[in-house]
């Protein structure tokens, strides 16, 4: 393990993902303690934050938290952000500090979608909500915030990475104007759990093999009853990755998801998609925010901001 990350890796309490309620409680506990000691950024003088309810025809609205830089010229580029949390946890507060920082550092509008969670709302509810938020951001809703619809990226972490990649596949297949960039951080891509890293890493910090098994169970149901899994659920299932948006993929060495992220990046390249892959050695899943104060985490986030600025 990277010496900078070893302490966080040692202290971070791994959560049994068999029970979504436990995972959600633990996330709330971490946030509460970070808030209590002022480690959790709640606001930023350079960023205006507002929650917007995006209505739907079927009556299940999606709330989007919009981060807009204070001052500056419009229209602006924008990033749709889909949080991590194994499809079963996370909300608008879950990665609030990341979104605040991303907005401030890139001067993009960042829109974080409060998509529905499994197991109460399994696939494709979360993706449908992400798609709705994307259409909103690229349509009149986003325009009212000063968004330039031709300069929009989709970003996601972990399970949110699966949603971001799937959103790009779906946009391509439906003929919707695609995002300009797909930014995939520690992305989940493959339900088949057949890569070397996902089989070998049974005791890695934060996230391990069994977490993956539970995650897919909650999102897609029991393995034996799943039938044919859609590429919109597990993007690695897609046979054709051509004509997708340019990609940035971040992986970490001691992450079960490492190899499926690397494989996805390689397949994007093979199918002609401009792709940047950054494999962080001796790092663990989510290190960029879970060990946020370390130099390597700063470096990772700074690179993400640079990539967004350059693409948009």
């Amino acid at each position, binding site marked *: 393990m990277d010496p900078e990350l070893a302490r966080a890796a*040692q202290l971070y309490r791994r959560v049994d993902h068999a029970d979504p309620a436990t995972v959600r409680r633990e996330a709330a506990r971490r946030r509460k*303690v970070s808030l209590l000691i002022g480690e*959790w950024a709640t606001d930023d003088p350079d960023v205006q934050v507002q929650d917007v309810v995006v209505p739907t025809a079927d009556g299940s609205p999606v709330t989007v938290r919009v981060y807009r830089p204070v001052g500056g010229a419009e229209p602006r580029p924008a990033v749709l952000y889909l949080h991590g949390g194994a499809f079963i946890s996370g909300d608008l507060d879950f990665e609030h500090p990341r979104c605040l920082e991303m907005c401030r550092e890139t001067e993009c509008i960042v829109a974080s979608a409060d998509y529905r969670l499994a197991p109460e709302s399994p696939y494709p509810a979360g993706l449908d909500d992400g798609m709705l938020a994307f259409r909103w951001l690229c349509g009149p809703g986003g325009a009212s915030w000063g968004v330039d619809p031709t300069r929009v990226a989709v970003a996601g972490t972990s399970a949110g990475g699966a949603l971001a990649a799937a959103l790009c596949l779906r946009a391509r297949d439906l003929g919707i104007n695609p995002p300009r960039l797909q930014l995939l951080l520690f992305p989940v891509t493959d339900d088949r759990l057949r890569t070397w890293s996902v089989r070998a890493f049974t005791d890695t910090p934060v996230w391990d093999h069994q977490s993956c098994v539970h995650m897919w169970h909650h999102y897609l149901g029991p393995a034996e009853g799943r039938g044919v899994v859609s590429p919109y659920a597990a993007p690695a299932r897609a046979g054709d990755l051509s004509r997708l948006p340019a990609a940035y993929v971040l992986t970490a060495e001691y992450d079960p998801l490492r190899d499926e992220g690397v494989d996805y990046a390689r397949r994007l390249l093979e199918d002609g998609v401009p792709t940047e892959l950054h494999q962080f050695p001796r790092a663990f899943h989510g290190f960029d925010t879970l060990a946020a104060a370390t130099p390597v985490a700063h470096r990772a986030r700074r690179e993400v901001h640079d990539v967004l600025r350059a693409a948009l």
Partner: protein
Amino acid sequence: MSSEEEFIKNAVEFLDEIGVDTAELGPETNLIDTGVLDSLAILTFLDFLEQQWDKEVDVDELSIDSISTLRRAYRFMEGEG
């Protein structure tokens, strides 16, 4: 948990194990303001307290002052804080 003295000895050992510099650490040292504990260390410290007393700490009800020193943490867990 038998005594405050015993708790403080165990707590210092525990904090030492998780990489905290305990050289200057006493019962009244402020663990939060001095940056001795960050959020990850506090979460781990809360686990330690819960194990020592075999009871859960509800973070929704927690005031950070109540665990800001080892002496306060002891009194808090004893129900006196």
